[in-house]
């Protein structure tokens, strides 16, 4: 028969063992949670901006109907090598057809313009900015599909992109700048 003192000692030992196990589990969990907290948070967004506009042909006296799309892929990373960073990839494709000022297509014996490009930008911050915005030009060279570069056009599509607390809003097409970039 156990004396009350021996019973108390047994309970104390069990209590100590349980407390130790709980402490170890809690420590392990906190490490796990901490690891989750410090691992980078990556978010991806994508937008598509249609471009359809009649513009003056800067190489000739005519006009060109531009019909294309700019696809934006945006990635934000919080807690990576840089505390907060955002990367934007701009991929644009489209074509241009000779037209009148009102957009009516014309046949002048020349093949249509085509274009395709990919550029990008990246920004980094010491902390997630409440507000960040960038207005940048995406430069595309419109070349006749025949390869003729004698009336090659440079089209700069100016897009405005705003991030609020790291989240992008839909890009806004501000303007198209057209110039002649005739090559050989």
């Amino acid at each position, binding site marked *: 028969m156990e004396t009350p003192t021996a019973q108390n000692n047994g309970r104390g030992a069990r209590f100590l063992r349980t407390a130790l196990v709980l402490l170890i589990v809690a420590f392990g969990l906190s490490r796990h949670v901490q690891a989750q907290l410090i691992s980078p948070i990556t978010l991806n967004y994508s937008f598509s901006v249609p471009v359809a506009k009649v513009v003056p042909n800067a190489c000739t006296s005519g006009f060109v109907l531009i019909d294309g799309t700019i696809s934006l892929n945006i990635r934000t990373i919080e807690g990576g090598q840089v505390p907060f960073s955002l990367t934007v990839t701009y991929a644009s494709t489209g074509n241009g057809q000779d037209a009148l000022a009102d957009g009516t297509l014309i046949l002048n014996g020349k093949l249509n313009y085509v274009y395709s490009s990919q550029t990008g*930008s*990246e920004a980094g911050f010491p902390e997630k900015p409440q507000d960040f*915005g*960038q*207005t940048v030009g995406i*430069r595309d060279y419109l070349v006749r599909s025949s390869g003729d570069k004698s009336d090659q056009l440079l089209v700069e599509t100016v897009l405005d992109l705003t991030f609020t607390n790291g989240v992008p809003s839909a890009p806004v097409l501000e303007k198209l700048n057209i110039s002649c970039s005739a090559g*050989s």
Partner: protein
Amino acid sequence: MRRSPWPQSGLGIVVLAAALLALFQEQARAQTVTKTETTTTDVVFKNVTRCNANQEAVDIYAREKHYTQTQTSASGAMKIADSFNDQGTGTGQVSGAQYGYSFVSDNKFRSSTSTFYVRIQFREHLIRLDSTVPGDDWYSLETLLINVTNGNTTFKAETIQADCR
């Protein structure tokens, strides 16, 4: 009969609020610092390989100008308007063939923090400067680093590579 004092008090409050608002706006304007700078950098990129392995490598010499207007508010928020003027020539390493490019690009940035960086790519059209050699112009992608530290902006042309798309 005594008239209610409210209409007069209300008018007084509106006038006072308008005066305070005007004062705050004036102070906010006074606390915004605007700086205009012109930076010119001569850049050399040696041994730029072209897309086709049979084409010779090219050395590129460029003069890059930035006309930058920076606005910093008392809160540290910033607006940067940069006009980037880039003119360059390329020289074929073996044949001495000459290529030229020139462009202007306007870019704007605004941020609630006064320290950040932006890395941005520009496409350039290198035109063969000899009309008797057709079909030898090409495109490049230049990466420009814009560093903003406590409201001070610096520019660095980092790389140029042939754009083979």
